[in-house]
């Protein structure tokens, strides 16, 4: 019996080790690819002249779609900020997704809105539209507000797609802070490519504690809370390392729901956002890619590493757990819906590399890690753990996690260096040292619970309360 147990323990240990080593190698490759891509991007964008672009009649008009649910606190300012974006031709479609607060009344009052009979068709099925509003004030002629029954973010975006006028759509979170030239940069992949471009995404940055004035980012600051600060590092890792690398091989599977640009026709042909998943952003892009691949049409998905969009991330453990729980469910649902692609050579790199990577290293990783911890506890009870071996292994894992974060920080310093104060570097290093033992277990647990909730059939977003961004002007007025 003892010998069987020993064999089992040894095999399991080796399996965990092999899995860990593959993940580490994956991270190493993404880091190398990202570095090359960031360097190339910086070199490529040395001679841009925004004025030439702003004067051009050749830039396609864009429809900016922003769903809003109970955003009464900031919606008027957020819309005003959107209206001042630098782009020659655009419309803004705010979709009030059945808010129970006074969002709609505030918009009507502030922007002189009145109901208009606008012809539209439900290319994608959505919940009922109650009314469509346009402004009587010519200054806001490119603003449309749609009031509809509550159906969730995906449904609201689909409504926007049905209503909007232009062929290129940009889906954003209404409370996002966009850089002035965000649209000019995000449209570039659509125009500077030989292949059909179906979507392009940008880097999302953490806006907590930053100074925001009239919907514009004035000063970049490091978040005050540990939870938000770790997410700065996480976003560096996810965007500057992960997505940059995938974009290098043009096999990006996720464009953040907070900020992404799409070819409307392709979105409609793919069926729009899926309202039955909480990971609608990833699911849409995977479906669009799958459709293009099945049609055999050459296509591309662009990615812009410039910090173009700033968003508020969860400040409390509770909200963070709900968010990560949802992200896990979204990933699992997407992978399940498109399971046919997995290891299917018909889908080339997408089937043979991208989806397996997401399956093994994004969705499965927390589950394997959790199983590893359970395995460790069992062995501990059975007195099968050698403390010195455990300690050396733990230290190896810990130093790798730290190295990974420091590498991401290095990428940020090398590329965009948004956190200018020297003290921020030390704070981020301190955060990176604490992350593996304080933050990571919580995120892993949320992912495990996400899978559990998925099995239980949970399909809601959960309450994502926000603390609000810092706005000195507003605070002064108060």
């Amino acid at each position, binding site marked *: 019996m003892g010998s069987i147990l020993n064999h089992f323990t040894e095999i399991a240990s080796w399996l965990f080790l092999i899995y860990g080593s593959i993940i580490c190698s994956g991270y190493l490759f993404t880091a190398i690819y990202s570095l090359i891509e960031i360097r190339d991007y910086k*070199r*490529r964008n*040395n*001679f841009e*002249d925004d004025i*030439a*672009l702003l*004067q*051009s*009649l*050749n*830039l396609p008009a864009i429809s900016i779609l922003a769903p809003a649910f109970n955003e009464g606190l900031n919606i008027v300012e957020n819309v005003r900020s959107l209206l001042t974006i630098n782009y020659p031709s655009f419309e803004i479609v705010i979709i009030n997704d059945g808010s129970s607060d006074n969002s709609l009344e505030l918009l009507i009052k502030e922007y002189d809105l009145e109901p208009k*009979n606008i*012809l*539209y*068709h439900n*290319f994608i099925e959505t919940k009922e539209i109650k009314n469509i509003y346009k402004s009587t004030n010519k200054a806001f002629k490119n603003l449309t507000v749609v009031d509809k029954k509550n159906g969730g973010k995906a449904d609201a975006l689909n409504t926007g797609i049905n209503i909007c006028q232009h062929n290129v759509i940009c889906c954003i979170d209404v409370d996002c802070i966009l850089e002035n030239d965000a649209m000019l940069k995000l449209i*570039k992949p*659509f*125009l*500077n*490519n*030989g292949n059909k471009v179906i979507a392009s995404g940008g880097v999302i940055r953490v806006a907590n504690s930053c100074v925001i004035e009239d919907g514009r980012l004035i000063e970049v600051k490091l978040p005050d809370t540990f939870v938000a600060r770790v997410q700065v590092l996480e976003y560096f890792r996810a965007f500057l390392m992960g997505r940059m690398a995938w974009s290098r091989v043009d096999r990006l599977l996720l464009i953040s729901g907070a900020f992404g640009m799409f070819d409307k026709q392709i979105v409609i042909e793919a069926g729009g956002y899926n309202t039955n998943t909480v990971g609608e952003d990833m699911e849409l892009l995977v479906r669009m890619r799958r459709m293009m691949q099945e049609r055999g049409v050459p296509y591309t998905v662009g990615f812009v590493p410039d910090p173009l969009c700033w968003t508020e991330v969860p400040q409390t453990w509770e909200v963070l757990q709900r968010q990560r729980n949802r992200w896990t469910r979204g990933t699992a649902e997407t992978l399940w819906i498109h399971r046919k692609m997995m290891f299917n050579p018909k889908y080339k790199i997408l089937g043979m590399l991208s989806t397996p990577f997401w399956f093994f290293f994004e969705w499965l990783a927390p589950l394997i890690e959790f199983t590893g911890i359970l395995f460790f506890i069992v062995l501990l009870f059975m007195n099968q753990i*050698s403390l*010195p*071996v455990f300690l*050396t*292994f733990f*230290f*190896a894992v*810990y*130093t*790798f996690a*730290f*190295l990974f974060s*420091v*590498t991401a*920080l*290095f990428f940020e*310093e*090398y590329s965009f*260096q948004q956190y200018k104060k*020297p003290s921020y*570097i030390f704070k981020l*290093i301190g955060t990176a040292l604490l992350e593996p033992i304080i933050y990571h277990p919580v995120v892993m647990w949320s992912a495990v619970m996400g899978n559990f909730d998925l099995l239980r059939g949970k399909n809601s977003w959960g309450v994502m309360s926000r603390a609000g961004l810092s706005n000195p002007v507003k605070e002064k007025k108060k």
Partner: protein
Amino acid sequence: MFYMYFFDFDSFWSELLWIMKFNILLSLFFTIFAIGFFIAIIWIRIYKNLRNEKKKEQHELLIEFLNSFLFDEDFEKEKEIRKFKEEHLRSSLEIKVTIKEILHFHENLKGESARELEALFSKLGLVEYILLDLKRGSWYTTARAINALSELCIVVPDHQIEIYLNDPRNEVRQQSQLYSLKLANENPLQFLNKTVRPLTTWQQIYIENALKNFYKGPPPDFSQWLDHELLSVVEFSIRMIARYNQFEHIQKLLPFIKHQSDIIRWEAINSLSSLEYTELLELIIPDFKKNSRLIKLEILEAVNKLGSHEELKRIGDQINTTDWELRIKYLNIEQGFLPDKKERIYSQFMLEKQFGI
């Protein structure tokens, strides 16, 4: 000896299990790398700060120098140029900042001052530096060098730039196109004759901008590229014929409304309607049904611009009831033609939609 008494590393290490040794070595490896990256971060920070300081200093020096050079009549130009070159153009950074600053100044100046800046650029020996950059071989130094040459209108032998017109990198191609255009006295788009790689929309935007804002000669005859092998060049030429109101080429555009490529057909219809060629409708309405959705939408747009409700009605029967995008476009145009019936058209549409007609 004292140390050895308390801790004998060799025996400690040899007694460790191999897995522990492996873990320790990995930890050491990761830690060394992490420290390495940390040092690199600090180094980058210090390097960038020092570089920014240096840039700021050079920038201030240059502003003073350039202002005196351009606007101070008592300024001893030759002597000061020599002095500046000897004292402030020693490092690569100083040279790069100087080039950038002169380019920036040049952007905001016209006429005599701009010419003087171009001469100064040459006297400071920066042309040689740029030419070295051009020959350096990497695509980004080449693109940067061509950009500086074109911004400052520095003429180099044609063959030195022409070889980049069909470079595999978009950026190099774009800079060489802009160079050829900005330095041309006539026929600024001659480079199109030598172009064998498609023009991206992005490149077309910048070419159009340079044509409007930098090229001073007479506008080129865009029809000369209507039979170019590249569809993107044909597309660009059709568009430019409309932008530059070259009405004399309308007849040459007509065959393109039956071109096999949708993009070219779309561009031809769009340009002809911009040129207000009213006969266009007679040519496109009868064939409406044979076209793709993209062209049908453009035909409707042309009717909106050039036609009347009567002409629109000729299309009405050709639109499939389930083609909602076309129907909506049609009805929107109809509402424009019949403003007093706007509400009725809307109600009718909603009713049809409700009952799936």
